[in-house]
């Protein structure tokens, strides 16, 4: 076999893989879903305002229900897309990691993690006290990193990591200033901005979505 032929076959295989990967990607959908969910959650952060104590955690309840439904919607969308386009990747790891992170942020896994000395306490501190209300948004970013791994998308991995950092910083700022009312109002603005970032990224990914022509026509 000639070397140039080997090189040609390598390039051809790489091109096929790249095309298949492009056809598989649908990052825009989870970005839009969780962006909209984040935007809708913003007014609920105002209800956290309370005098002399913690109010009922409507935000936590909202994220528990809406976040879980969000992942169900994402899983259903990927399945539908697979039927339309004719090629599908397994998003199960993303959905499992995403849902796991949501449960983690609500402390549902903490009793289990308490079995590990110090780890449970650290996690409880993180989820309940350190970034109240922001933990689910951090979890969305971390979930996106898992999706990036599934879809082998470097840009989404970078975006998800940066988004998680920004959401964490917003939560830490809130925690530092939680005794001031301005911090509560600031948290509403922060959540709105974070939601807008997700939605904007969703539209950008949608614009560069390269689905086959027949699938575009079918959808």
């Amino acid at each position, binding site marked *: 076999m000639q070397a140039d032929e*080997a090189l040609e*076959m390598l390039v051809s295989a790489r091109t096929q893989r790249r095309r298949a990967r492009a056809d598989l990607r649908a990052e825009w959908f989870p970005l839009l879903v969780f962006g909209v969910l984040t935007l809708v959650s913003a007014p609920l952060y105002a209800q956290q305002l309370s005098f002399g104590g913690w109010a009922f955690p409507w935000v936590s309840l909202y994220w528990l229900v809406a976040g879980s439904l969000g992942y169900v919607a994402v899983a259903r969308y990927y399945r539908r897309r697979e039927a339309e386009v004719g090629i599908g990747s397994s998003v199960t790891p993303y959905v499992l990691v995403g849902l796991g992170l949501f449960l983690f942020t609500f402390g549902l896994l903490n009793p289990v993690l308490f079995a590990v000395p110090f780890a449970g306490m650290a996690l409880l501190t993180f989820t309940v006290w350190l970034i109240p209300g922001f933990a689910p948004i951090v979890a969305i970013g971390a979930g996106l990193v898992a999706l990036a791994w599934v879809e082998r998308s470097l840009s989404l991995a970078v975006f998800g990591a940066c988004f998680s950092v920004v959401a964490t910083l917003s939560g830490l700022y809130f925690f530092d200033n939680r005794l001031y009312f301005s911090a509560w109002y600031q948290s509403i603005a922060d959540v709105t901005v974070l939601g807008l970032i997700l939605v904007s990224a969703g539209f950008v990914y949608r614009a560069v979505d390269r689905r086959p022509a027949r699938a575009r026509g079918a959808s």
Partner: protein
Amino acid sequence: MTHPTVELDEVIHQRTRLGIVAVLMEAKRADFRYLKDALDLTDGNLSRHLQILEQAGYVRITKGFEGKRPRTWVAVTKLGRDAFGAEMYALRQIAERFASAEVVNDAGREPGAAGADPLAT
């Protein structure tokens, strides 16, 4: 040391079959129509290649219905993944041998000789 061509697997080394497995390496599964469009093949041609890959145990073919429409899904097996990895490795070895042979040949040529790099000092 054996020549890398010895390690080439005749089943997957064929260009179209390599393309089929390359697509499947990225996906959980792909349907017959997608593979046909992606690789620009006829129904008969794709069927023949899939049959060869299935007989070698490199792909798994599942036939079913979606509504009233028949649908054929193809997925790569563990054996297929391993074969694809080995094939890529062998192809890279061949390409690298060629590249290093080129360097040796270029170094052996006298400046100004026919075929020598005119920019080389």
